[in-house]
């Protein structure tokens, strides 16, 4: 019995909800993994903040063009139909609501959709990048995350304790235990691991899980 999904499995689950023809921005790091699990037959067009639409996989080692990188500064390639544009146009795509999906990591998500994912508080060098823009504008703002912190504390909470990235911006959370939509400032449970009861899930969630419609089994292949 699966007790929790691996990061790859969370990424796989999030990838299944990306529709054919979607324009998608994947945050730096963990969210980049979602691209690996695009279902066959779907065409997904990836946007990167630094000004590329429709980039592809990493080039072979030694084949990099360092003017052809993604927001994480990793070398990428181009798909047929790619385009380049400057940063203001790139964020016009973001802020203007032209992306279908943005997928981000999180430190905390609050039940009203508040997201904290850029700062763990004072003491380090603050760095925000494009996250505060990405949480506004995409039609679906999705978070992929472990359900709890390494210490076992809930990451889905009533109110974020860390500095916010955006207010009321998250639409769906894909966790290691569940899929949860945020509707009218409530966590609405859509899917959970089949071996887990709602009560068990509630016990590791920092705000009320609302049941509104069927709760499906969260079944993900080994990936």
């Amino acid at each position, binding site marked *: 019995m699966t007790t929790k999904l691996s990061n790859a499995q969370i990424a796989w689950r999030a990838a299944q909800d990306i529709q054919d023809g979607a324009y998608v921005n994947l945050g730096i790091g963990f969210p980049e993994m979602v691209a690996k699990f695009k279902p066959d037959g779907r065409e997904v067009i990836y946007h990167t903040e630094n000004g590329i639409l*429709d980039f592809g996989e990493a080039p072979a080692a030694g084949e990099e063009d360092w003017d052809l990188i993604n927001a994480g500064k990793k070398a990428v390639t181009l798909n*047929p139909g790619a385009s380049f544009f400057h940063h203001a146009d790139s964020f016009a795509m973001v802020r203007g609501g032209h992306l279908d999906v943005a997928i981000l990591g999180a430190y905390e998500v609050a039940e009203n959709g508040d997201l904290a994912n850029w700062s763990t508080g004072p003491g380090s060098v603050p760095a925000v990048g494009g996250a505060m823009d990405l949480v506004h504008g995409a039609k679906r703002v999705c978070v992929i995350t472990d359900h709890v912190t390494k210490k076992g504390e809930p990451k889905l909470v009533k109110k974020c304790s860390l500095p916010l990235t955006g207010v009321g911006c998250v639409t769906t959370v894909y966790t290691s235990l569940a899929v949860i939509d945020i509707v009218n400032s409530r966590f609405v449970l859509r899917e959970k691991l089949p071996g887990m009861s709602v009560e068990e899930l509630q016990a590791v969630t920092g705000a009320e899980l609302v049941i509104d419609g069927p709760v499906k089994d969260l079944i993900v292949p080994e990936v």
Partner: protein
Amino acid sequence: MNKLSSSVEAAVADIADGDVVMIGGFGGAGAPIELIHALVERFRKTGSPKNLTVINNNAGNGAIGIAALLYAGMVAKMVCSFPRSTDPKAFTDLYLAGKIELELVPQGTLAERIRAAGAGIPAFYTPSSYGTLVAEGKPIAEFDGKHYVQERWLKADVALIKAELADTKGNLTYHMAARNFSPLMAMAAKVTVVQASKVVEAGEINPEHVVTPGIFVNRIVEVQNPQQEEVLLREGVVA
């Protein structure tokens, strides 16, 4: 993902009564004549779409293009900077008879309001029109000792634009100065419909030469050898 429409008629089939329609072009340069005329034909056959708000720099010339929309009685309101032309009768008669509403917007403000809509900027400040009739009723603010007018974004339900090349993913290039408002309108409309002189496979346009990325384009129809408004005008054509 398939953005190709089978015909200009199909491409404009769902424009509805009361829609706000941006139309690319500056005078005849970049005017999507075939898309506009398909809309006029649809109205003649079905009585719809009507009560349109049309956004363009101008307000038609002669009896073709936007002027044909006006003569057909499909337009309730024009948003433009310069409702004059060599033959502005279509608009002038409606306007002086009180049968059409006009929102006059300085040209640079018109361009910036459309871009702002596309870029998710609900409002911005411009020095243009400060202290003039055009600014009446708009918020004023002072920055660094100078006065500016607050302007709002300008969105549309549909944009009709003309491109030179389109690839199947919707990436566009434009011929010469035909681009004018079109790249902005493509960003600002819920649905952007493009007539392209040639449709090519994805990958055939150099990514560095793309002017409008495909994310801003919903529907493409190939119109080879498109009509040019200025040529039609000189030939005295009536749509």
